[in-house]
């Protein structure tokens, strides 16, 4: 234990002497938490629509007004032909084309039906898909208005079918605000970066400057060295987590609905798991560049597969299986559940078990793989 104290003293001195890393560790959570939720927003607004009107009737005018006033669409141009409309898509100025054929009003009034053409730019898939869906809703609404005007007097019974509409409620995030979804995720991202990257780089740096060899030639035992590296970064990680929670509360007014103690317990174990991973990476890498790349590779997969950006439920089965094998997935889930839903130990106990297993396996591998004698 005496030896461990000397090691810890040295690590803390070095951490607090490196002003750049220190600043990064504390500025990062604050800046990321403030900027990312504002910028990364999946709710689609400002879908740019090109409206090609061959009919120039009062109904087509009504439709264009309805679309324009929905709040989601921006009519960027009203060219005279579909081909001219396509040019806007090609230039990237528009996401959707809505083409109204000639005889729109006449057919609507006489025959009670009329087709319109919607073309979407699929490069920004999310935006045009959602825009397409929104536009459909607007058209359906327009249809209902028409029904009331034309059909109501004659065929009142058919109306009842269109009166059943789905109204949805977003539980635990009532206004479906993106920040509630993003902010807890970013907290997780922060711990992941500190755990995975900083430890790996720190140890590999010692390899590069040659001090690790000096350490290996001393009687420092493996567990002392590893604990000496884990404990300081664990403490730093917990501080960053606390800073993150504070920013979350001060800036977004989000206070965890569930138990803070449970949240901290999860953060503590998650950090141990990720620190173990950083350590494991450091046993493979000889240079900081290698460590960066290995860590980055895993982080990318972890982040993309974790349900941070996209829901794991919409992944194919194989992807969901991979997702289950990344600790980030479990931790993100738990943080959202505890922060937004107020889940307790009973609901998230299973995830705790997963994280404990990750922590044990990753650290065991790292300890096994760390050699004082090669």
């Amino acid at each position, binding site marked *: 234990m005496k030896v461990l104290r000397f090691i810890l003293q040295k690590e803390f001195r070095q951490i607090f002497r490196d002003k750049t890393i220190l600043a990064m560790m504390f500025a990062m959570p604050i800046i990321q938490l403030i900027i990312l939720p504002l910028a990364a927003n999946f709710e689609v607004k400002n879908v740019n629509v090109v409206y090609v009107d061959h009919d120039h009737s009062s109904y087509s005018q009504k439709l264009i007004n309805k679309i324009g006033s929905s709040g989601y669409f921006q009519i960027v141009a009203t060219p005279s032909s579909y081909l001219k409309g396509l040019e806007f898509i090609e230039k990237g100025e528009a996401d959707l084309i809505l083409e109204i054929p000639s005889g729109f009003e006449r057919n609507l009034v006489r025959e009670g039906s009329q087709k319109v053409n919607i073309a979407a730019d699929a490069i920004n898939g999310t935006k045009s898909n959602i825009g397409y869906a929104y536009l459909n809703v607007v058209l359906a609404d327009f249809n209902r208005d028409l029904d009331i005007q034309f059909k109501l007097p004659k065929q009142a019974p058919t109306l009842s079918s269109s009166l059943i509409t789905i109204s949805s409620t977003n539980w635990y995030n009532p206004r479906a605000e993106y920040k509630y979804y993003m902010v807890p995720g970013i907290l997780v991202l922060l711990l992941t970066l500190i755990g995975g990257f900083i430890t790996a780089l720190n140890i590999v740096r010692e390899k590069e400057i040659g*001090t690790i060899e000096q350490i290996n030639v001393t009687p420092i035992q493996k567990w002392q060295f590893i604990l000496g590296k884990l404990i300081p970064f664990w403490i730093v990680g917990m501080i960053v987590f606390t800073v993150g929670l504070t920013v979350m509360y001060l800036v977004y007014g989000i206070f965890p609905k569930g138990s803070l103690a449970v949240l901290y317990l999860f953060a503590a174990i998650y950090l141990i798991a990720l620190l173990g991973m950083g350590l494991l990476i450091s046993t493979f890498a000889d240079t900081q560049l290698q460590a960066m790349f290995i860590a980055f590779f895993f982080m990318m997969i972890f982040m993309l597969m974790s349900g941070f950006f996209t829901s794991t439920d919409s992944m194919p089965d194989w992807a969901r299986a991979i997702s289950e094998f990344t600790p980030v997935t479990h931790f993100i889930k738990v943080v959202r559940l505890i922060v937004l839903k107020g889940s307790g130990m009973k609901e998230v106990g299973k995830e705790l078990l997963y994280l404990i297993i990750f922590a044990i396996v990753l650290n065991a591998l790292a300890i096994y793989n760390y050699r004082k004698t090669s």
Partner: protein
Amino acid sequence: MENKAIVCKDLTKQFGDFKAVDKISFEVSEGEIFGFLGANGAGKTTAMRILCGLSYPTSGEAKVAGFDVYKEQEKIKKNIGYMSQKFSLYDNLTILENIEFYGGVYGVSRPEIKERSAELVKTLGLEKEAKKLVGGLPLGWKQKLAFSVAVFHRPKIVFLDEPTGGVDPITRRQFWDMIYEASANGITVFVTTHYMDEAEYCNRISIMVDGRVEAIDSPTALKERFNVASMDEVFYELARNAKRTSD
């Protein structure tokens, strides 16, 4: 019988087909200053890393401070000091902090660290710099400090891998004064060097060529054997037949 600090018999380290160290045998007595010479790539560092417990030998036997290099590396590590080619103190710690850390991990108690480091800083003439970061020191001072740290815990044997590389002649002389002092205190010194004038300072030297020890004796005896005036020429006679190109 005189006690042996290091005993090596047919020690071999092989990387694939390449025999970095090829059946070397030698003994080093306690308190001796033993020069371990050889051209670049001759296998000096590899052999030294085995003796320090940093690397497993492929075959052969070796005992350092009475402990086996296969099974008792951790015991070896308690009894030796090591100064590698690369400067290996922490640049972002002060002189005192470096001494404290390395002293501490070898189990020197805090009060003793305090006392001994104050003394050390005084003898090195670094009182003013004691609380400055090591990174800012000139190379010569760094090397002297690194050596002092390597013998701070009073090991039985100290291994020095090209300790005076890139250091000016005056500092080199001072460095060797420090080595003599350590030796006088009973520490066995095992040192590699490329400077043949330094080889003359050693009690005995061995010269490695292509992984093998080609000659081992006192500098005077070697000069007599090859009938030359200086160690430079002894080294040249032996090393010019080397097959391995120096890196």
